[in-house]
C-alpha cells in the first residue's frame, strides 16, 4: 500500500506555493499522503497546508533549521521517511533538487529527478521525465522499497485546498549530520520585486540579448501592465542585462504560464526546454526565420523597440 511523504518548502515563515505541485503528485497517485513541514517557523507555517487532505502534518520546527542548508534537513527527513512511507516527494525547486538526492542516498532509496507525470501501473509507479533538454521523454521505474521523487512545478498544476483540517504531530530533530558542522549559512540575497515569482506567474514577459541595456526600461512597463513576471534568456543574463535568477530554460527556471512573451529571443533548444509547455506563446523578433517562431502561437516579425511600446498602447486600449 502506497503511503506518500511530501516535503514542504518554507520561506519567510510560510509554505511556498511550489509545495502545492508535490500535493498534486500525491493526488494523482491516489494514495494517502502526509506533509512534513520542516524548518524554522514550521509551526506557524503548517496552517498553510492544513486543508489539503493530508493524513497528517508532521511538524519539525527548530532554530537549527535556519536557512535552507540541506545537511541540516536531510537527517530528519530521512528518519521520518523510514517510518512507514514508501514514496518521498518534493517539488524540483533549487531546494528540492538540493535535498532530495541527499535524503535518497541516506536511506538507500532510488531517486527520480524532475518528473513531468506519474502513472500507476498495478503496484508499480511509472515516472515520466524529460531528457535531452526536453527533446525526448523517458519512462522509468525505481527498484527500491522507498522511492524519492522530485516533480516539475510547471507540469503539476498547483493543488487547491480540499477543506478540513489535517491533524498535526510534532517531530523531533534527528541526530545531526557531522557534515552540517562544515557548512555555514551566510545568507540569502533575493532581489526585491513586486512581480510574481516565475514559477507561479500566469503571464511571463521574457527578453533576450537583443534588449541590451534597455532590458528593464523596455520590459518592465509591459510586465507591470500585465501583472507578469519577467524572464530572460541565458544570453541576456550572461551579458548582465538581466539578473541570473530570471533565466528561463534547460538550466534556468522551467515555466508554463498561461501566456509567454519571447521578445528578442532566438529560440535555442535550451531556452525552449524551459517554456515550451506554456499555453499561449507570443514571439516578437525581427528575424522571420528565428526558431522561436516554430513554437510560437502568434509571431510578430518586427523591431522590438518599436513593437513593445506599441503593444503597451494597444493593450491599454483593449482592456
Amino acid at each position, binding site marked *: 500500500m502506497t503511503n506518500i511523504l511530501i516535503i514542504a518548502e518554507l520561506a519567510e515563515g510560510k509554505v511556498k506555493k511550489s509545495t502545492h505541485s508535490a500535493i498534486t503528485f500525491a493526488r494523482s497517485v491516489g494514495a494517502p499522503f502526509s506533509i512534513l513541514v520542516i524548518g524554522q517557523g514550521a509551526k506557524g507555517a503548517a496552517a498553510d497546508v492544513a486543508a489539503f487532505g493530508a493524513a497528517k502534518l508532521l511538524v519539525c520546527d527548530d532554530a537549527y533549521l535556519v*536557512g*535552507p*542548508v540541506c545537511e541540516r534537513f536531510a537527517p530528519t527527513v530521512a528518519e521520518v521517511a523510514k517510518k512507514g512511507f514508501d514514496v518521498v516527494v518534493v517539488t524540483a525547486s*533549487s*531546494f528540492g*533538487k*538540493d*535535498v532530495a*538526492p541527499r535524503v535518497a542516498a*541516506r536511506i538507500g532509496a*532510488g*531517486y527520480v529527478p*524532475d518528473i513531468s507525470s506519474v502513472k500507476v501501473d498495478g503496484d508499480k509507479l*511509472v515516472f515520466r521525465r524529460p*531528457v*535531452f*533538454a526536453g*527533446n525526448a*521523454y*523517458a*519512462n*522509468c*521505474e*525505481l*527498484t527500491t522499497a522507498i522511492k524519492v521523487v522530485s516533480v516539475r512545478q510547471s507540469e503539476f498544476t498547483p493543488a487547491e485546498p480540499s477543506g478540513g483540517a489535517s491533524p498535526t504531530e510534532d517531530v523531533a530533530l534527528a541526530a545531526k*549530520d557531522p*557534515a552540517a558542522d*562544515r557548512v*555555514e549559512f*551566510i*545568507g*540569502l*540575497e*533575493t*532581489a526585491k520585486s513586486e512581480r510574481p515569482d*516565475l514559477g507561479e506567474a500566469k503571464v511571463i514577459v521574457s527578453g533576450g540579448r537583443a534588449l541590451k541595456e534597455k532590458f528593464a526600461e523596455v520590459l518592465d512597463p509591459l510586465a507591470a501592465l500585465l501583472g507578469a513576471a519577467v524572464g530572460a534568456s541565458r544570453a541576456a*543574463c*550572461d551579458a548582465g542585462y538581466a539578473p*541570473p*535568477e530570471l533565466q528561463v530554460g534547460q*538550466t534556468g527556471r522551467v515555466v508554463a504560464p498561461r*501566456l509567454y512573451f519571447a521578445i528578442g529571443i532566438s529560440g535555442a*533548444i535550451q531556452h525552449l526546454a524551459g517554456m*515550451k509547455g506554456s*499555453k*499561449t*506563446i507570443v514571439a516578437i523578433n525581427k528575424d522571420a526565420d528565428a526558431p522561436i*517562431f*516554430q*513554437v*510560437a*502561437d*502568434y*509571431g*510578430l516579425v518586427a523591431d522590438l523597440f518599436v*513593437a513593445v511600446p506599441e*503593444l503597451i498602447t*494597444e*493593450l491599454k486600449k*483593449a482592456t
Partner: protein
Amino acid sequence: MKILVPLKRVSDPDNANKVKVTGGKLDASGLEWKPNPFDEYAVEAALRLTENGTNTKARVGEVVVVTFGPKEAETTLRAALATGADKAIRIDALDDALDGDVVARALKALVDKEKPDLVLLGKQAVDGDSNQVGQLLAEYLGWPQATFAASIKSNADKALIVSREVDGGALNLKLTLPAVVSVDLRIVAPKSVTSIHTPATHTYPDGVRFAALMAIMAAKKKPMTEVKLADLVTDAATKIKYTGFELPPSRKAGIKVKTVAELVEKLKNEAKAL
C-alpha cells in the same frame, strides 16, 4: 589543493540531427559526442583554483579528471588534460549500465583512494538532465555540498565561500573542506573564481580556456589510468530502470500576425489569454 573533476561525455542535443526514438528506444546515433558543458566549466574552475592566474604554466595544486565510459571516452579526458588537468582516470563502463547512483557510489570509492580536498563537478549532465550525482556523492562521503555554484572564493585552500544560484536569488555558504561543489553556468565569468594563488587584480577571460597545440601534444604524455567499475563497487546494479522513450508532443505551428493591433485582437478574442 587537490581537486577531482568527474567529466561526462554527452551526445550533443544542440545539433542539427535531433534525438530520435525508434520502437520506444532512444537513438542518439546521429548526435556528436562532446564534453558535458557544465563539466568543462568545472574543469576551468578547478584550474583557476590550482594556479596563479598570471602564470598558468606553473601548477599550485592538482586536478584529476575522471570519466565513466568505454575506451573512446578517453578523448574527452585527453581534451581536459590538454587544457591543464594533471592526470586522468577512466572507469571502464557502458553508459547504459550506469545511473547517477552507481556513478556516485563508484566516485565515493575513488575519492577514498585519491583523497582530493574537493570534488568539483557539473550541476547536471545535459543528456539525462538529472542533477543528482553531486548531491548523492556528498551524502555517501558524509561531506558538505554546495550545488549550483556561480562563484567560489577559496580561503587559504581550507574553506570555500560559495555563492549558489537558487530560485529567486543567491545563497551564500561557507564550506570547510573536503566538500563537493557542483557548478552552474556563471562559474566561468571573469571574476567568479578567486584563490590565494592569484592576485586579486587578475581578471580571467570569460568562458573556458582552449588548449594550445603544444599542450595537446604534451597531454598525450600525461598519466591516464583505467579502473574497472567492479573494483570500485561490489554492487553495480542501478536503482533506476528506463523502460521506454517517447518524443514530446509537438506544438502545432502558429501563425504570423502582421501588426501589433492584430496580435492584441488575437490574444483577446482567439486565445482568450488577456
